[in-house]
């Protein structure tokens, strides 16, 4: 790959992202540049279009090439019960409060292939109120959403997931919730009945209303401060008063504009509760 001077490269990347925004409406201009650049390198290697202007030209004309670009822009790495202690904390600190509601809504924003949403469904089931809950699992990667909707995953990760599940306070065995054939597992349909997978772009789409709990884990790290603030304020508008926000283990509300609207529920595991009404 030809080495460009850093400043030139930044300018070229900026033009590329602007062009894409114009043509397709996807806005990546406020993504963290360093990791975005690594993903762009993969697109460049894949397409053999190493010059950014040439790549933009192709993207402009070729929608299939844009699909490929989008796929590369979405990091689908995820796990069931990732950071088990977080789920334990949700079980112990949030669930008892949520149980006092007749019906609750949970939003997994940036759900990737849906493992997180199934984890939550299992947790709610074991706490005995899955029937009173609706889980919205959204992402801007349509292919990931299809995987989630199918509920079919590779069996090779189930060992890790089963260990996570138990560490998260699981009351049975993870394998009680799926059936296997060959190297695939399919999660039971009763879980999926409570999950709605749908397309939502956090950058450009609006409020997703009246949530009791929003889980947005390992998504904000891909955004710069400006976009983080934008998305967080979208969350404040989408949460019910007293609703909960659960971020990734290395994400926090420190130094964000919405910080004062929340009180920490579990500082270590980045769980917050919205205490203030909007725009106060």
């Amino acid at each position, binding site marked *: 790959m030809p080495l460009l001077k850093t400043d030139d490269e930044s300018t070229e990347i900026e033009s590329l992202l602007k062009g894409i925004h114009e043509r397709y409406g996807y806005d990546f201009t406020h993504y963290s540049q360093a990791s975005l650049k690594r993903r762009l390198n993969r697109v460049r290697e894949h397409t053999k279009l190493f010059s950014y202007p040439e790549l933009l030209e192709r993207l402009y004309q070729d929608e299939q090439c844009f699909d490929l670009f989008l796929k590369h822009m979405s990091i689908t790495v995820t796990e069931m019960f990732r950071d088990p202690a977080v789920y334990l904390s949700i079980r112990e600190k949030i669930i008892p409060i949520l149980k006092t509601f007749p019906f609750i809504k949970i939003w997994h924003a940036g759900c990737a292939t849906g493992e997180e949403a199934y984890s939550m469904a299992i947790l709610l089931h074991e706490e005995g109120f899955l029937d009173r809950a609706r889980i919205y699992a959204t992402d801007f990667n349509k292919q990931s959403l299809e995987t989630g909707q199918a509920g079919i995953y590779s069996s090779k990760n189930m060992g890790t997931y089963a260990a996570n599940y138990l560490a998260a306070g699981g009351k049975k065995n993870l394998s009680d919730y799926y059936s296997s054939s060959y190297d695939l597992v399919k999660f039971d349909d009763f879980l999926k009945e409570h999950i709605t997978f749908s397309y939502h772009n956090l950058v450009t789409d609006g409020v997703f209303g009246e949530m009791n709990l929003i889980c947005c884990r390992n998504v904000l*790290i891909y955004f710069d*401060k400006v976009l983080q603030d934008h998305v967080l304020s979208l969350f404040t508008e989408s949460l019910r008063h007293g609703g909960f926000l659960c971020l990734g283990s*290395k994400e926090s509300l420190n130094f964000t504009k919405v910080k004062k609207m929340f009180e920490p529920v579990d500082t270590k595991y980045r769980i917050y509760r919205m205490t203030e009404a909007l725009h106060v």
Partner: protein
Amino acid sequence: MYEAVVMGLSAGGMNVLKTIIPALPATFPLPIAIVQHIAPSSDGYLAEYLGQISAIPVKEAEDKEILRGGTAYLAPAGYHLLIEANRTFSLSIDESVNYCCPSIDVLFDSAADVYRQNLIGIVLTGANADGSKGLKKIKEGGGLAIVQDPLTAEVPYMPQAALNATVIDYILDVSQIAPLLARLGKVGEGENNVRSIS
């Protein structure tokens, strides 16, 4: 004038960090970003421990945190650590690189883009080849490359891979690294010429 130091360690790295970081003076002016390969479940104990025995502050790097001079930052377990053009950190959970997350190459690659010739890269003990691509890129950008002498490294594979990958400015015993950094970090003493001596 150097602006930052990046450091990569794998197997055997704890002992090396315990030698280098506490030997840096409290006045050390540059930020140091460190990737030590570590189990995904570990919880930041290493940074806390190193902080207790060092003159400079040591902490786990946080997402979008500004790099401060005279502070050592460790990549959190399970996250890649990257440096942005505006001198802040970003974290990511992208795929593993060289089977590692955090990966040394990922840190070095992003740091080389930002600091170019004003960067010092150091590859130390370890059992895989992570870091050698990154160190090569640092050299290509005009930065300074330091490698632990494989003969004295607890696990020589990683420093040897770095040696094979690019031209190295200093091949050193661990005990020599902090004194050299202290010297290179000193501002306004023509220390940038040091490279030509090596």
